């Protein structure tokens, strides 16, 4: 393996690694626009010029493979490289409109960051603003993206994303020289269901997000790492929020799950999760609001009916959108509270769908983030499924129902599942439903308990591959809603007379013990920045293929 020295620090890397990748691994910061770890290198921005001993001219770090014994000097220590990069940066700003005050990229713009860098920025301008080449501004490219061609640095990341990753090839350059301009054909709106990524890959303000437009300056945002709950892929995302409101959701790079991308549906799923139709207070069958102590007491009383010891007297329906931790407590509650119980989570054929692709890139047909976790926790051990339970309930098999329900964040609940749930609730005499949203088909429940939605509670999801990923809490749940873990802990306390420890760490240790597949996983690795842990090899039940996007 070649050994390369960058700024006096050495690293051994695999054959074929580029200089910029080696530098990234060493933590040597090399400025770049066109290089993106998940796109083919094009070497067009010339910003990553470095000096290499033995080379007459600076070379681009992104497209130069390391060779054994190579000695590289970044612009931080090489005057040659620094001068070269400074020159390139000056060129990039020659025709830049410098409209940072009205540009949403400001604060996370590479041009700004690099210009302010003392090692290669801060040149004096020699251009009159009046002399700049003018191009199209504020072009609406559909509901996701706004284009400002003057701010474009022609790095072609978007062009390459569109052609290589999503395959829609909807953005392209036209013309030549300094007249080159980014366009869509006849300014058409983007059809790409992954169009939101264009704004993410854009290192400057040429492509900005329509949803986020003028909402907030990025330096005001707080960020929370999370996992998208839109489908079983479990894309890693970062939730940017301000004063208790989610302003945007952007992808977080995870090479083995979603690389650097998310789909637009996932990007916008927070709107539904935090929507208007939230259930804000515990509610009895009469529609009256309850306090939590009343509600828990009533839930306990209702569920006692199912504890009589008659076979099949209690039905516990978990949710494939609930965290592993809440499912663990639900299962424990079921085991401790009822001698005879049926546990399930299926509203349809989730186990068959869990790793079925919806397209070539990320989206999967199972719109739940934690189907695999529910399977691992044994929620579908028996023959069952919702239709079967409805039939059983209508033959008075169940005395009590405990249902945890989160509506799917992408698309609507299938009419069959909604209808079946309604019939089930009506058929069981005592039904306690934990739900984040007010939904007509849940209205008949004896007791409705408001539960935190996505981004309002922390925990882990297991994606279709069997990867266990930690999702953080960005917001407080609205109204009196509480996390499912807290509610289930209250219910458990009624049974065991001891409140379980609900700290994420403890719960995860218990989870790792309870699920054979998770043995060896630890919360420490999980809550690190990468927020992913795979079960040791050979333990995955589904989705062995790993990520295999095009």
């Amino acid at each position, binding site marked *: 393996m070649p050994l390369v020295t960058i700024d006096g620090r050495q690293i051994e890397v695999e054959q074929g690694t580029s200089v910029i990748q080696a530098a990234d691994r060493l933590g040597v910061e090399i400025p770049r626009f066109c290089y993106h770890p998940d796109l083919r*290198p*094009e*070497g*067009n*921005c*010339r*910003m990553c*010029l470095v000096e290499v001993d033995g080379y*007459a*001219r*600076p070379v*681009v770090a992104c*497209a*130069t*493979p390391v060779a054994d014994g190579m000695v590289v000097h970044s612009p931080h220590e090489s005057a040659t490289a620094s001068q*070269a990069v400074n*020159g*390139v940066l*000056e*060129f*990039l700003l*020659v*025709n830049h409109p410098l409209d940072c005050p009205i540009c949403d990229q400001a604060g996370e713009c590479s041009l700004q960051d690099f210009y302010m860098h003392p090692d290669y920025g801060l040149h*004096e*301008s*020699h*251009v*009159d603003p009046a*002399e700049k*080449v003018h191009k199209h501004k504020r072009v609406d490219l559909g509901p996701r993206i706004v284009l400002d061609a003057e701010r474009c*640095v*022609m790095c072609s990341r978007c062009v390459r994303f569109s052609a290589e990753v999503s395959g829609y090839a909807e953005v*392209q*350059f036209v*013309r*030549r*020289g*300094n*007249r*080159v301009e980014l366009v869509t054909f006849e300014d058409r709106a983007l059809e790409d269901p992954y169009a939101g990524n264009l704004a993410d890959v854009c290192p400057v303000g040429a492509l900005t997000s329509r949803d986020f437009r003028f909402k907030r300056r990025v330096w005001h945002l707080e960020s929370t790492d999370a996992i998208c709950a839109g489908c079983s892929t479990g894309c890693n995302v970062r939730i940017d929020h301000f004063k208790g409101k989610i302003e945007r959701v952007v992808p977080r790079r995870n090479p083995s799950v979603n690389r650097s991308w998310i789909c637009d549906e996932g990007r916008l799923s927070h709107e539904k999760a935090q929507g208007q139709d939230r259930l804000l207070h515990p509610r009895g069958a009469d529609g009256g609001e309850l306090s939590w102590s009343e509600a828990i007491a009533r839930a306990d009383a209702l569920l006692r009916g199912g504890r009589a010891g008659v076979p099949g007297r209690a039905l516990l329906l978990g949710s494939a959108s609930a965290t592993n931790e809440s499912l663990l407590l639900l299962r424990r509650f079921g085991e401790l509270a009822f001698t005879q119980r049926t546990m399930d989570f299926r509203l349809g054929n989730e186990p068959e769908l869990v790793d079925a692709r919806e397209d070539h890139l990320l989206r999967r047909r199972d719109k739940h983030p934690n189907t695999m976790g529910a399977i691992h926790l044994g929620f579908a051990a028996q023959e069952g499924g919702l239709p079967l339970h409805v039939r059983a309930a209508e033959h008075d098999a169940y005395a009590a129902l405990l249902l945890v329900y989160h509506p799917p964040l992408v698309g609507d609940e299938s009419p069959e599942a909604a209808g079946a749930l309604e019939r089930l609730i009506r058929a069981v005499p005592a039904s306690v439903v934990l739900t984040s949203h007010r939904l007509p088909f849940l209205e008949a429940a004896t007791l409705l308990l408001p539960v935190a939605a996505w981004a309002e509670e922390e925990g882990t999801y297991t994606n279709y591959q069997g990867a266990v990923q930690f999702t953080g809490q960005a917001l407080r749940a609205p109204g009196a809603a509480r996390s499912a873990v807290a509610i289930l802990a209250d219910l458990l306390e009624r049974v065991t007379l001891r409140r379980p420890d609900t700290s994420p760490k403890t719960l995860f240790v218990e989870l790792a013990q309870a699920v054979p597949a998770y043995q060896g996983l630890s919360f420490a690795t999980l809550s690190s920045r990468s927020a992913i842990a795979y079960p040791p090899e050979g333990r995955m039940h589904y989705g062995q293929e790993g990520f295999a996007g095009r």
Partner: protein
Amino acid sequence: MPAILTRHTDDPEQTELDVAQRRGAYDGLREALSRSPDEVIAEVEASGLRGRGGAGFPTGRKWSFIRPVPGQPVYLLCNADESEPGTFKDHYLLRRDPHLVLEGIAIAAYAIRAHTAYIYMRGEYASLAEIMAKAIREAQGAGILGESCLGSGYDLRVSIQLGAGAYICGEETGLIQSLEGKRAYPRVRPPFPAVHGFLDSPTVINNVETLANLPFIMTEGAARFAALGTDRSPGTKLISISGAVARPGVYEVEMGYPLLELLRHEAGGVRLGRRLKAVIPGGTSVPVLTAEEAAPVMIDYESMQAAGTLLGSGGTIVFDEGTSMPEALLRIAEFYAHESCGECTPCREGTGWMAWVLRRLVQGEGRPGDLDLLLRVGHNIEGRTICGLGDASVQPVRSFIQKFREEFEALLPREALAAPAWQMHGHGPRTGRFGPPGEEAALSDPVEGPPNAAL
């Protein structure tokens, strides 16, 4: 003077296959096919033939980089996208002796084991493409090309691709991109075309003139070719002379021939009996020579380099004493600004910027420091681009300003010669962190000061 390429070009009937064949056309191919491809490569390497497109890279060496991969084709691309301003030698060959070029293509293709060859011609040469297409049809009809060339069992398909007006397609990787149907954005190297070329296959790109030398090398032998010209620049060179010259045209000279001799004797000297002011010897992409500098220069790679310029494409442009060098340079700079493909930053922004500054200079609106600005912009382009166009655009700008600086300075307004740039147009070095110069004064004078005089 010995002729290799222009032996038969005076006869308009040379384009006919039977006429050409009577004069020995395709004998070189027959000779090549009788040997192994490696022997052909060795012969060409021994001849010392260097690429005639501009860079002067040894042709045999270039071929030897090809390592065929099983199941993957090898391509030969004939670069007939002659777009360097002042260059029309390939035009001449393609029009006058298409079979010579075709034979060269076949020899090269055989040597690198390619079964497909493309002739990429610039769009403006559509009329030449017809001549070439006819030549290909004739050669195929005669069993020279196509399946089993000359009965040897070696198959070769030759196709023509016409461009549509873009200088950058003459750049190797730009040409490949264009042939693939993409924007002709040059590719960053490595990987080189010999490994990942057209459609990711091993590819050789050779210039028309380079290929046209091959039949001679095959029939007459490498030694006879190497005996021509100088030690390190063997053979002959087609020189296209244009501009302020009495008899513009294409001349074949032996390498090492004195440049001004060619200009004075063959090309009839400077037009209208005027005095020579300057000459660009290798297309606009190489530094200009003043008349004095040009005097001792020979037409070969080494002599040109010693004089601080390059042989390039051999496009010799003559400037007479009446020429305004700034205006001429503006024309050249505008060419590069127009033809820069816009892929990589320094060339995209730099060529346009240089043209912009030159234009205001020529229009009498020059600003102080503009000449230094031009040189600095050039410096920031050079060596930092993906392909050679960036470097090429800098050569004329730098050499014109260096060698004719007084002409440029004469265009600057008098006061512009002294004052630093920012004083002229109100922006520039910021002296404090909070704003333009003068502001500190305002801040340090709390009451009497005039800061709100603007009110």
